């Protein structure tokens, strides 16, 4: 159960600061997901931990040992890359056995461990193939095999599923989560896909411009976003934001409401005062749900999630009613207001 601790770790490229000094502690056995928009520094942070990039300041400790200066191989971590980075001139067996060979493990022992890893990942039939003869999902499994074979202290995943098609991605997500459950090893997983973050993580670290915006369990992050950035980044479709008088009326300079916390009622004959009047615009019918876009009279456009059977004509006057209990209140500069 390996813990990883970053203290005041920073990274600059020339005079450009990619990651201002940050602290982060990852407990042993945790599945941590770094999530954020592209360019937020999540991959850089992972590569700093891996030792593929040199840190510009601070220290990285793995199990209490300062590894800030250690080359990647000495950190005892394994990494799965976005492009899988399989060695194209080696067979699957040689790919999986390569880290062991580098570590000087005797041939017989390598064969045993490779067979074991292959068995776990359903690769036994493919051991003699070259990477070019494998499908994307199979390559991904070989990359994972190469990572698990040397029993690393922690796994690092750098957007491992982004090259797979949607169906495979869902399958691999489950496989990786299952792997984590079986091995119990610490895993750090980088993605820009919030669905992956929500479904796989024990802990989500939301990054933006090299800074940590929030750390928490998926539901914590979803239900109590620390600020406007997190609120809008997590959740699909994105949270609706109200400003100005409409927000003031609801008790904060900025109000966030998730689409599922809005109800739509016809405008005519509705006497309630907490509704926001507007005009129905586009309706997106997904089958199970319908997303109705409503242009509010005060200017903003909001998106409401209603049932799949819901029908409303474009241009019809409606009133949007937010659930009071699920309002997210923010200060003018985007920090969450906790009451």
């Amino acid at each position, binding site marked *: 159960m390996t813990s990883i601790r970053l203290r005041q770790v920073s990274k600059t490229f020339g005079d450009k600061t990619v990651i201002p000094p940050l602290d982060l502690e990852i407990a042993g056995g945790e599945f941590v997901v770094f999530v954020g928009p592209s360019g937020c520094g999540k991959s850089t942070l992972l590569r700093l931990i891996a030792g593929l990039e040199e840190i510009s300041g601070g220290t990285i400790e793995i199990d209490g040992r300062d590894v800030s200066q250690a*080359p990647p191989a000495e950190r005892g971590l394994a*990494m799965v890359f976005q492009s899988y*980075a399989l*060695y*194209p001139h080696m067979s699957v067996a040689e790919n999986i056995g*390569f*880290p062991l060979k580098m570590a000087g493990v005797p041939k017989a022992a390598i064969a045993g461990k490779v067979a074991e890893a292959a068995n776990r990942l359903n690769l036994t039939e493919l051991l003699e193939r070259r990477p070019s003869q494998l499908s994307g999902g199979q390559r991904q499994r070989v990359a994972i095999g*190469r990572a698990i074979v040397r029993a690393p202290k922690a796994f690092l995943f750098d957007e491992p599923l982004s090259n797979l098609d949607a169906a495979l991605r869902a399958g691999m997500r489950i496989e990786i989560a299952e792997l984590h459950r079986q091995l119990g090893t610490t895993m750090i997983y980088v993605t820009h896909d919030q669905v992956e973050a929500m479904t796989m993580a024990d802990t989500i670290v939301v990054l933006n411009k090299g800074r940590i915006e929030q750390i928490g369990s998926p539901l914590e992050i979803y239900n109590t976003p620390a600020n406007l950035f997190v609120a809008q980044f997590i959740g699909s479709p994105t949270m609706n934001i109200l400003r100005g008088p409409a927000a003031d009326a609801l008790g904060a300079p900025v109000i966030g409401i998730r689409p599922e916390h809005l109800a739509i009622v016809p405008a005519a004959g509705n006497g309630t005062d907490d509704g926001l009047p507007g005009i129905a615009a586009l309706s997106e019918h997904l089958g199970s749900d319908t997303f109705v876009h409503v242009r509010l009279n005060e200017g903003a456009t909001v998106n409401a999630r209603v049932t799949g059977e819901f029908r409303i004509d474009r241009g019809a006057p409606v009133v949007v009613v937010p659930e009071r209990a699920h309002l997210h209140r923010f200060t003018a500069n985007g920090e969450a207001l906790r009451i």
Partner: protein
Amino acid sequence: MVVSARHRTLSALTTGFVLVFFVAFCVFPFLWMLDTAFKPAAEVFSTAPTLWIASPTFSNFRAVVLESPFLIYFGNSLIVAGVSTILTVSLSVFASYAMSRWSYLSVTQIVTGGLIVSQMIPGVLLLIPLYVLIRNMGLLSTYAALVIVYCTFMVPLASFMLKGFFDAVPRELEEAAAMDGCSRLGFILRILLPVTLPGLMATAVFAFIAAWNEFMFGYVLINDDARRTLTPGIMLFKGSHQTDWGSLTAASVLAAVPVALGFVYVQRFLITGLTAGAVKG
């Protein structure tokens, strides 16, 4: 392309005519060379030469191989071109790695600039100082003289070509190797070179052909028949009073074989080599 039927016929005809003409233009000298090589002396020295060989013979080849220094020249060329190629490629691998991975370092940029400039300096202009240098080193008429010179002139080309192949190897592969406990040298030897093997071979063949074909330095720096390479050797062959054209063409055929074989291999890399600036006319 969108063309009318009439235009299409016309353009096909023109294309056909141009190609037939140029193929004949390009191939005929070789054909005639091959033809002469198999002719007995009586047919070679005929005032009414024909493509048809009345009594084909291997006697020219036999004469060249057994009764002339051809085999010595051939062996010298093999040694010089082979050693230069190995040395050129070995040095270029490291330079190209630096150029490919550390192109942002000023030391790399300086060396790269130097290589580009040096690639433009023609050998004739350096003939005298190089001759003097080699003479002062006591290396005249040695293999080493040609190997050193050929390496120098081929290293820039080989480096740019290899850099192109190395650039195509994803960085993640190197990072994966680093995670797996591979040192930089280990990565180059265990991953980079095997992965780029076809490109490496193409570069080597280009270097070999260039060394094999070189004439001037071989002519000037070697004065000892025992060390003479093939291209000056063949020219001296011709110069000896009564030219034996049968033997000369036979020698030419044999000398052309290695480059022709190499060429078959590199043909598909020609365009790549060209864009890397690695091919000189």
